[in-house]
């Protein structure tokens, strides 16, 4: 280990997150490696190590002969200070080598607030942050993950973006890089070859041209790059790679357990939900295979908890069969099984009782909106009577702790919708009073609201976000009407939501704001300890951009959107139709009831959607 590092580590908080050496990490002999990849997560170790996508890509890439993929995370502020003081560049955990030793630096970006971390991590590595300032072929700096469905805000920084699921695409990219190194290709030559790989978006091959009013006139395509970059996905998800030997961190992380992935995609079609649109179509894994993968993972890690992860776990058809199979192994081994994302409408108390034998933890539901009209408008197919019935059963079964999540500022929301949230909470409280079996400990109902952020590739991608003042008025309105003793009301601040809205639907010019924020000290923006709203506002002003232009402006169907060169699968016409249905407060059927022909099936090369 670097001598300077030896001196630093005892001084920083939780040093184990900077040292690597965990069980199941992959160490390769550098002699037999010709491509080195740094898989970077632009947030802390605890967050990044909990990310299933990171585990999958780490495993998939390391299965390639001659390729060694290592992990890199963002250091916490105390560590960064020490590193900068001592002049130690950012390193990869497995080898301890600096990022400048790597051929490919790939960022997995799940949320926009991590953008400043990307710049900070590149800078900590001594690598120029802008693609145009990196002239050599290597290291090639690229990104993937949910946020890349609008690659434009980060276009100046990444050499390329991979759109969609990385299992196949990343391998193809690294093979191309190996060939490019052998053939001595220039970076430019490599990028135009890379643009031929399905799913690869090379920002330098797309040139945005703006109208006088600041909207996009068009995005020019250069050097024969594809007109439309179509998202890649794994068509045979059932048999696709799953990491049964994940790294076991030696220090505690956020989700410290085995995670099974039941299916990708979601049948529901909630109109605000980006994940529900950009991961279509639905592809499931066989329950027997999942049971096998779960048991193997538990045996390979020694974890004592396993969880089922998917967008809407209770929509997995053989869920009972899967749980029974896992419980057969878990119960005798004292391993806990936990179920997240249950829907209030098909909640099964049997299932909950089965998996939570010992402790009755809280139940969480996300009705998202207070009135049936607004729930219909956003296509959240939950009926009030279902939710109340579920709560009733839960109270009768001994649960005394319910969390309810809502969004404020949804399209078409009125004060009536806002106030209905407190009515709903009061109805839940009343149900507890009339149905609880054990009232000695009291009841705890938590209502949380967040501010709706319109996202690209959803029916609400054209929507205006309500401005901060209006959002605060609605929070106050709700707060003043939520005075019951057993009900706690939490709300998210509007300022992060505004920034998130700008970054989500920003164009290439927003990159200058991100850079300015970073230059003036911005990093770890998803942490309240570090986020500074003023810093962002100052940066917008300095760059001559208006955040409300991006966040609070309604777009027309004809407007050229910054992400219009990216095809995530669902047709824009379909999304526009869904938006119109919203304004009529009409529901669309879920994919299991009736296929609505969203367009995502075209990605499957003849395969089926398992909606």
């Amino acid at each position: 280990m670097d001598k300077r590092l030896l001196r630093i580590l005892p001084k920083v908080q939780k040093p184990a997150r900077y040292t690597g050496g965990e069980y199941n990490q992959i160490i390769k002999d550098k002699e037999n490696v010709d491509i080195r990849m740094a898989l970077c997560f632009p947030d802390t170790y605890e967050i990044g190590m909990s990310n299933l996508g990171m585990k999958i890509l780490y495993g998939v890439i390391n299965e390639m002969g001659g390729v060694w993929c290592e992990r890199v995370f963002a250091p916490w502020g105390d560590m960064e200070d020490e590193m900068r003081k001592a002049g130690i560049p950012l390193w990869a955990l497995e080898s301890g080598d600096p990022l400048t030793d790597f051929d490919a630096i790939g960022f997995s970006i799940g949320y926009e607030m991590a953008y400043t971390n990307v710049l900070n991590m590149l800078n900590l590595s001594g690598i120029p942050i802008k693609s145009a300032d990196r002239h050599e072929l290597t290291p090639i700096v690229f990104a993937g993950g949910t946020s890349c469905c609008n690659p434009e805000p980060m276009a100046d920084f990444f050499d390329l973006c991979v759109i969609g699921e990385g299992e196949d695409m990343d391998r193809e990219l690294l093979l191309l890089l190996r060939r490019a190194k052998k053939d001595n290709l220039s970076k430019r030559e490599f990028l135009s070859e890379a643009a031929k790989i399905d799913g690869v978006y090379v920002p330098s091959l797309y040139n945005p041209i703006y109208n006088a009013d600041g909207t996009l006139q068009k995005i020019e395509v250069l050097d024969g790059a594809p007109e439309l970059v179509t998202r890649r996905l794994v068509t045979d998800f059932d048999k696709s790679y799953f990491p049964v030997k994940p790294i076991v961190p030696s220090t505690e992380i956020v989700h410290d357990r085995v995670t099974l992935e039941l299916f990708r995609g979601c049948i529901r079609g909630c109109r605000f939900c980006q994940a529900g649109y950009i991961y279509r179509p639905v592809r499931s894994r066989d329950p027997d295979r999942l049971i096998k993968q779960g048991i193997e993972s538990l045996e390979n890690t020694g974890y004592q908890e396993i969880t089922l992860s998917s967008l809407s776990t209770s929509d997995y058809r053989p869920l009972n069969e899967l749980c029974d199979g896992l419980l057969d192994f878990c119960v005798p081994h004292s391993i806990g099984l936990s179920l997240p994302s249950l829907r209030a409408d098909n909640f099964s108390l049997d299932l909950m009782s089965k998996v939570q034998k010992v402790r009755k933890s809280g139940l969480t539901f996300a009705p998202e909106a207070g009135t049936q009209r607004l729930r219909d408008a956003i296509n959240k197919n939950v009926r009030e009577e279902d939710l109340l019935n579920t709560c009733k059963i839960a109270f009768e079964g001994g649960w005394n702790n319910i969390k309810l999540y809502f969004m404020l500022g949804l399209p078409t929301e009125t004060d009536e919708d806002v106030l209905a949230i407190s009515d709903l909470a009061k109805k839940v409280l009343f149900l507890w009073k009339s149905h609880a079996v054990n009232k000695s400990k009291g009841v705890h109902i938590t209502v949380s609201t967040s501010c709706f952020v319109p996202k690209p590739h959803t029916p609400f991608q054209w929507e205006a976000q309500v401005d901060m003042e209006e959002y605060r008025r609605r929070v106050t309105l709700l707060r003043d009407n939520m005075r019951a003793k057993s009900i706690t009301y939490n709300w998210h601040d509007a300022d992060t939501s505004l920034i998130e809205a700008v970054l989500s639907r920003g164009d290439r010019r927003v990159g200058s704001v991100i850079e300015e924020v970073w230059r003036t000290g911005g990093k770890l923006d998803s942490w309240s300890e570090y986020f500074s709203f003023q810093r962002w506002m100052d940066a917008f002003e300095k760059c001559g951009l208006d955040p409300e232009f991006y966040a609070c402006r309604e777009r027309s169907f004809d407007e050229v959107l910054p992400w219009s060169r990216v095809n995530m699968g669902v047709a824009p016409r379909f999304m526009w139709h869904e938006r119109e249905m919203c304004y009529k407060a009409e529901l669309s059927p879920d994919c299991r009831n009736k296929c609505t022909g969203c367009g995502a099936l075209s990605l499957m090369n003849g395969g089926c959607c398992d909606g």
Partner: protein
Amino acid sequence: MDNLRLRFSKTGRAVYISHLDLMRTMQRAFLRAGLQLKYSEGFNPHAQISFALPLSVGMTSYCELMDFKLNDYISLAQIPLRLKKVLPEGISVLEVYEREQKFKNIKWLDVDGSFEYDERSASDILPELMDFFSRDSIVIQKKTKSGMGEADIAESIRSITFDEGDGRIRLKAIISAQDPTLNPELLVSALKQLSPQLAPDFAIFTRTQIYDSEMNVFR
């Protein structure tokens, strides 16, 4: 099987695993090895394992001890073989045996230390350092459960020697492990408080051996 004891070393990257994280790491390693640790009864069952002397983060050790109980019988020789395959880098099994004496009989600890000086030469400092630690009484301010207190650490140092090599000072000391506990880092605190010009810019320590009150190696 009760009364089992694991002796292991904690070196390299593993020295940054904290005491609490080490408990978790060991429990997971035993599960991977297919060895079922005995759990306590009750509402919140926990594995019945305990460590002899909690080790500070950053300190290397070649003499860590952990007591544990297993649900099922297995030959003693099998346990280290199984554990070896499933431990993270830097944690190595030395042996597993049935314990004969309790942790409370531990008294002395053998530590190696290395003092690094950035501005001054180690050879200049060496004689002064020897003088300092040959005092009969070294009274320092020390954090206790009830605020700050005073302690004479000289009584807790059975022997201490210094020599110089590679531009730094190496020390070997036998210090009190329990009743009272002398954290070797207090040797540096003593210098900082009483003779700051002798305090190293960086110090690391390694545990090499533990003894009972009669200076027999404790196992």
